[in-house]
């Protein structure tokens, strides 16, 4: 009923038969462009979105999802079995730290020299993990801390991590110590293209000094590599995560998920750019064709009317 009313009001009957299919094609293409635009505007980062976060930070924290997390190789270290006083003796032999399920591991490094690793068990009844040396294996108390001295003979510390990861600490107005902060970084986002669902990369999102980066909880564990080198400051890390959201939090503000504008999404997705360009050019071509054919029709009608008038004049 409504459709026929619209059809009547648009007076499609006046359009010549040979142009009607072109008008239909024009409307279909316009609808297609609007549809694609809507999909682009309202689409969000989803499960298929991949984030690669590279950061230089004075602080990394992570909580393994299960007990199969990667062990940590340490050497040239001092230990503290109460997270307070460190042993005066520097242990040069290698040892392996295993993290217990539910424990939290924090890595802090301000300057060049020392890297501090703190492990905290789930609660008072749970050990933070265990420490394996060449001589024995020690079950750790709820809190264990080690200071690793990086120098020319021990220039690198590296560990693979998998679990809930956060970079930098959320800044508060605390005045008991200086906050270890995130120094710099960027998040590369890879998403699936609009047309063929193939991977494309969006413009990287910069992370500024002092911001706190964390990942949404209900996603698959993030994986990453942490590395501290003697000749550089802080700790370098690369974290890979699939799906979910990446949050960036600034001082005195709530964390905000990384998002991109639909214009950026269109401009970064080459498939979208080409598709929209082709559709717009196609629309212009159809418009030109409709206009050209209508002119021809008008010209033809005009010539026929003239000829008819001449014929009538000749008869009269």
């Amino acid at each position, binding site marked *: 009923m409504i459709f026929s009313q619209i059809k009547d009001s648009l007076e499609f009957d006046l359009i010549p038969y040979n142009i009607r299919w072109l008008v239909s094609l024009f409307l279909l293409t316009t609808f297609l462009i609007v549809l694609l635009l809507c999909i682009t505007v309202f689409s969000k980062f989803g499960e298929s979105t991949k984030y690669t976060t590279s950061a230089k930070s004075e602080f990394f924290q992570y909580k393994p999802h299960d007990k199969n997390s990667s062990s940590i190789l340490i050497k040239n270290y001092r230990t503290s079995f109460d997270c307070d006083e460190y042993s005066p003796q520097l242990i040069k032999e290698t040892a392996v730290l295993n993290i217990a399920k539910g424990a939290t591991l924090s890595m802090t490094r301000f300057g060049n020299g020392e890297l501090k690793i703190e492990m905290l068990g789930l609660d008072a009844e749970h050990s933070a993990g265990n420490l394996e040396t060449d001589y024995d294996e020690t079950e750790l108390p709820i*809190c264990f801390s080690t200071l690793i001295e990086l120098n020319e003979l021990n220039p690198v510390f590296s560990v693979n991590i998998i679990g809930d990861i956060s970079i930098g600490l*959320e800044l508060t107005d605390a005045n*008991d*110590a200086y906050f270890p902060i995130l120094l710099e970084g960027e998040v590369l986002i890879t998403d699936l293209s609009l047309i063929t669902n193939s991977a494309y990369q969006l413009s990287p999102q910069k992370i500024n000094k002092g911001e706190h980066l964390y990942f949404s909880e209900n996603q698959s564990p993030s994986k990453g590599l942490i590395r501290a080198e003697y000749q550089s400051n802080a700790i370098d890390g690369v974290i890979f995560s699939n799906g979910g959201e990446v949050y960036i939090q600034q001082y005195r503000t709530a964390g905000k998920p990384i998002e991109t504008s639909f214009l950026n999404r269109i401009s970064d997705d080459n498939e979208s750019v080409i598709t929209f360009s082709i559709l717009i050019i196609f629309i212009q071509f159809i418009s030109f064709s409709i206009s050209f054919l209508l002119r021809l029709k008008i010209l033809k009608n005009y010539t026929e009317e003239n000829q008819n008038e001449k014929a009538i004049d000749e008869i009269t």
Partner: protein
Amino acid sequence: MFFRLWFLSLMAISSVNAEDYKLVDFSEEYSDNVDVSGGLLIGYQLIGSTLTKSKKHIYLSKPDDVDKVEIVISTIDGVYSASMKIEFIRESNGWLPIHFPSEHAEKLKGYDQSELVAYGFTRKKDRAKKTYLQIFPVSWELPSANSKLKPKFFINSASSMPRYNIKRKDSFCKKINAEVKTAFNFYCDISEDFPNGNNLILFNTGSGKKKKYLVWN
């Protein structure tokens, strides 16, 4: 501890009225850039399970011999901060209802008990003439045997693993799960064997830095 709460609440109902104290000073600030309390300990408060919308009174428990108390109140997001100075005219005991004369009471209604925290204290000097704080418990609702209130410390620390020590027993504080943490970022559950009377509490926030408070309970 919990028996004491119940006992004190009974006493409070019978023995306290508004004329027991006078408000010597009250200042408050509500804006996006409030200068929050600069200490480590931001709150020592009894926390219930329910949201107390009315913030007209704050209940304080203190020893009989203390007649001057300061109360500092902060919101977790650092938007609000208040400071009260109270002088008790006569000896009072039990849970004392202190009128909270805030002009921003309506705005504070939305804050949960654990997001608007307070601590009452008095300043004291030790033998070396160093100032230390004697802390008293406060609560936004009148503690009773049925209210199931639990005492908690709220602290603001740059450490990732702060803890406190009572009678040589270490307990770790836990991260607060909130959107914005400016005035405080950790809470410390107090074990049920927290002794009555004065307790020396040492907060250790890493790198050997310790801060002591005398907490009355």
